[in-house]
């Protein structure tokens, strides 16, 4: 069968880039200046303080404020970003005051967009780097301030250290001017500049005002060998608040004269309400008003009350009926759409090498075929969606735990009919994010309700049920795979077809509606097409299923299912080859030098776990490796299947290139793995009659204390480039678990959640 010729990746990237770039500057082509020019510093100095750059303020009283413009949602990013400043500024991290700061273009994230480039992480060729450069500059031009894609440490690594180094240079230069000496002769330590000759010293606070106007050149960053803070585990900056129950989250916002509210939005996405018992809701004790909510993200009602529980009761009393669904309304119809998509033409293939058809037509070995699938998933952050808004005297103020404050600002301002300049966004702590809090629906609804409160602030909290049924879901996906595997050798031909709705199309359409986004959506096959394998005939194609169910970024995005698809099928190929899963994986890498970190991680984890040792009856060990967000992660899972399955122990060897905070990196790996086990074991979002079936934690379970395994983790630092931390533990968890169960029982699990076919121990 003849196939259409596909455009090469470079062309596609150019198209995507121009599409976005043109939108950003109102249809006018931009020049180099747009990339070179630095966005305006959003910080304004208060009385008695100096602003050094968008990240550092120092006041006369000695307070050093560091703006860490990435959302703290548990990943410890504020601690690490502040440590970068501390390292160059010569202050103890504990002496820094840390703030999220205002939304601003200056806080653009280019690393997140660089990660969107198509070449596999290990491709560092000129063309690949050029693509990353292009994508990265897009982040700057768009002024996109967002937390996601495991990019914050990578993005901040130079920016934050440079901020610290320039501030230190300015402080030294101010001291030099006072003492009439050369700045190079001065020393800094513990927030103080010292002249070792005269033994004079001045604190940063004393120098702050002078230093603001000091001219300094390009700072030189300290070499890794000189680091005193980076590379060492730091106590979490906000730990005291978090062990004392301090009111730091969005849901804890309390303001004078504040009202409380909730929303009841149509559980059929995009549908309008048909009827509701507004009077019954109004009659609930404590309910003040019921208003209509019509936004781009959903339609329904807002309940305004004098306490949250009254608002919840009001929403319940509404008993609303909703319009019909305009999309496949149940699981069967959704599976049908995915099947139709996979049977149709591919939309793109980011891996397309050799000749698949010839490879499959002339099998030199065993033909291996398999079908895999995963369901939709909810984020289930522990803190339900909520935000507070106040619209008074033409000024809109929002308090929200958001991963994208800039978008919240512009979208809520537009909705309220207020200028962006008159809209303040206060980013507060996030009780979990995982991608969910990059959306605008929760602040948008708070804004909608604030338009009915005559200037009083209102905190709008969703019930857990509302949260579960109005998520932007990790999409369902279907995979069909074929391979030719000779005995004792690596596969010669691998074909992976993957069908799924496009996350990018959904996110851009919903959250960035002004942004035309062309080109392929990499997330559909991310984690499948760009893994460390070298195959002669290799094709990984994406088949777009157009389903109007809102989907979004969910911890590790496409890798969350492609890691399972890729590594699960890898094990099936290994079985056909007669090699064990570890040896087969190593064979699949060929001799390519660039894949050395993967080999090292696999060998390390095998050694740590004694992978090859014989297993006692009922026990099984499974291995997987997934390269995602620039980090190489190998995992071995050990299960006991004598009774219901229990995950006993997990070993991880991970290589993110450079680790700035080893303890936090380990914690992130554990967290990511547990997130992945929760997914694999029992999570699914089902649809019936156009609405989500699941409601709360009882029917959308997560791993519990009694189910959690022991962990042993080793960090390797062989890779040359720095990778992420927050998401990388998730992708290998499901395939390593499936492999362990297969190892113990001979049962192959190809469909998540595994509770469809096996049972896990409950405590």
């Amino acid at each position, binding site marked *: 069968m003849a196939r259409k010729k596909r455009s090469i990746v470079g062309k596609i990237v150019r198209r995507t880039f121009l599409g976005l770039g043109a939108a950003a500057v109102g249809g006018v082509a931009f020049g180099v200046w747009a990339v070179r020019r630095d966005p305006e510093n959003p910080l304004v100095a208060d009385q008695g303080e100096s602003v050094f750059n968008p990240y550092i303020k120092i006041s006369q009283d000695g307070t050093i404020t560091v703006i860490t413009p990435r959302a703290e*949602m*548990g*990943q*410890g990013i504020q601690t690490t970003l502040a440590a970068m400043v501390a390292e160059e500024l010569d202050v103890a991290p504990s002496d820094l005051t840390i703030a999220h700061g205002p939304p601003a273009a200056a806080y653009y994230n280019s690393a997140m967009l660089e990660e969107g480039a198509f070449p596999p992480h290990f491709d560092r060729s000129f063309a690949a780097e050029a693509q990353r450069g292009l994508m990265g500059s897009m982040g700057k031009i768009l002024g996109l301030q967002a937390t996601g894609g495991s990019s914050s440490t990578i993005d901040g690594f130079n920016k934050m250290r440079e901020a610290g180094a320039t501030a230190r240079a300015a402080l030294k230069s101010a001291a030099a001017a006072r003492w009439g000496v050369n700045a190079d002769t001065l020393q800094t330590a513990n927030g103080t500049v010292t002249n070792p000759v005269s033994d004079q010293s001045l604190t940063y606070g004393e120098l702050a005002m002078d230093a603001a106007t000091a001219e300094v050149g390009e700072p030189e960053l300290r070499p890794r060998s000189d680091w005193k803070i980076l590379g060492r*585990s730091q*106590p*979490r900056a*906000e*730990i*005291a608040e*978090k*062990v*004392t*129950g*301090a009111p*730091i*989250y969005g*849901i*804890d916002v*309390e303001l004078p004269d504040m009202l*409380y509210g909730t929303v009841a939005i149509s559980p059929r996405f995009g549908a309008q309400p048909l009827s509701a018992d507004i009077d019954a809701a109004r009659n609930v*004790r*404590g309910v003040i008003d019921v208003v209509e909510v019509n936004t781009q993200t959903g339609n329904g009602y807002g309940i305004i009350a004098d*306490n*949250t*529980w*009254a608002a919840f009761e009001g929403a319940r009393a509404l008993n609303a009926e909703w319009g019909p669904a305009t999309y496949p309304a149940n699981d069967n119809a959704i599976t049908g759409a995915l099947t139709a998509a996979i049977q149709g033409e591919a939309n793109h293939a980011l891996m397309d090498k050799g000749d698949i058809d010839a490879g499959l037509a002339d099998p030199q070995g065993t033909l291996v075929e398999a079908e895999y699938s995963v369901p939709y998933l909810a984020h*289930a*952050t*522990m*803190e*339900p969606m909520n935000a507070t808004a106040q619209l008074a005297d033409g000024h809109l103020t929002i308090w929200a735990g958001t991963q994208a404050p800039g978008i919240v600002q512009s979208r809520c301002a537009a909705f309220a009919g207020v200028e962006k300049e008159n809209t303040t966004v206060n980013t507060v*702590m*996030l*009780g*979990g*994010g*995982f991608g969910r809090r990059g959306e605008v629906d929760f602040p948008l609804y708070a804004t909608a309700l604030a338009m009915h409160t005559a200037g009083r602030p209102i905190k709008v*909290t969703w019930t*857990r049920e509302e949260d579960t049924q109005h998520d932007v879901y990790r999409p369902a996906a279907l995979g069909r795979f074929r391979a030719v595997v000779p005995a004792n050798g690596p596969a010669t031909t691998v074909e992976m077809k993957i069908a799924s709705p496009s996350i990018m199309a959904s996110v851009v359409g919903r959250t960035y509606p002004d942004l035309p986004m062309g080109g392929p959506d990499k997330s559909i096959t991310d984690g499948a097409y760009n893994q460390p394998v070298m195959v002669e005939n290799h094709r990984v194609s994406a088949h777009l299923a157009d389903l109007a169910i809102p989907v979004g970024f969910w911890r590790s995005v496409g890798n969350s299912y492609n890691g399972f698809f890729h590594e699960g099928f890898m094990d099936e190929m290994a079985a056909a080859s007669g090699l064990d899963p570890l040896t087969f994986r190593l064979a699949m890498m060929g001799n390519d030098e660039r894949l050395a970190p993967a080999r090292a991680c696999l060998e390390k984890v095998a050694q740590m776990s004694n992978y090859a040792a014989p297993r006692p009856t009922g026990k099984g060990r499974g291995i997987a490796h997934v390269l995602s967000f620039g980090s190489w992660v190998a995992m071995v899972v050990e299960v006991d299947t004598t009774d219901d399955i229990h995950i006993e122990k997990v070993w991880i060897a991970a290589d993110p290139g450079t680790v700035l905070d080893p*303890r*936090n990196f380990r*914690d992130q790996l*554990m*967290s*990511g793995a*547990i*997130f992945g086990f*929760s997914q694999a074991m029992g999570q699914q979002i089902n649809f019936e009659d156009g609405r989500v079936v699941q409601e*709360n*934690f*009882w029917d959308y379970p*997560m*791993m*519990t*204390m*009694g189910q*959690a395994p022991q*962990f042993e983790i080793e960090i390797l630092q062989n890779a040359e480039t720095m990778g992420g931390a927050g998401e990388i533990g998730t992708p290998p968890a499901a395939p390593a678990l499936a492999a362990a169960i297969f190892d113990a029982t001979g049962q192959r699990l190809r469909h998540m959640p595994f509770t469809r076919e096996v049972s896990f121990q409950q*405590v």
Partner: protein
Amino acid sequence: MQLNVNGQNHQIDADPEMPLLWALRDLLNIKGPKFGCGVAACGACTVLLDGMPVRSCSLPVADAAGEITTIEGIALDGTLHRVQRAWIEHNVPQCGYCQSGQILAAVALLEETPQPTDQDIDFAMTNLCRCGTYPRIKAAIKTAAGMES
């Protein structure tokens, strides 16, 4: 209605059906107990009622007769409770949202079982943590108990 929270009496005017959680959070501005599920499934709202852990989202305020202790009430004279100190030592919290509940559940467990085994911990600590901090919670409980972890 009267509520005794962290040794202080408060007079409140509330629907007797209102869950204790919302009386604490919205009427008394005690924000330590968190809202996670509203159906006694997660434990984020855990408080101690006469020393016993209860899920305040599912306890009508009218039934909350007794001494209520929230996370705000376990530190003594500015000194953190040993469980809180162990939490800091082990860097337990990530997003931290579940941790007020986890800490109170651990305080109650150690009152009942000063030297808990792994199994005791698994049975008693049924609070959910979406960030997956379980391994560190377990280690911190043992530290707080003065055991090797």
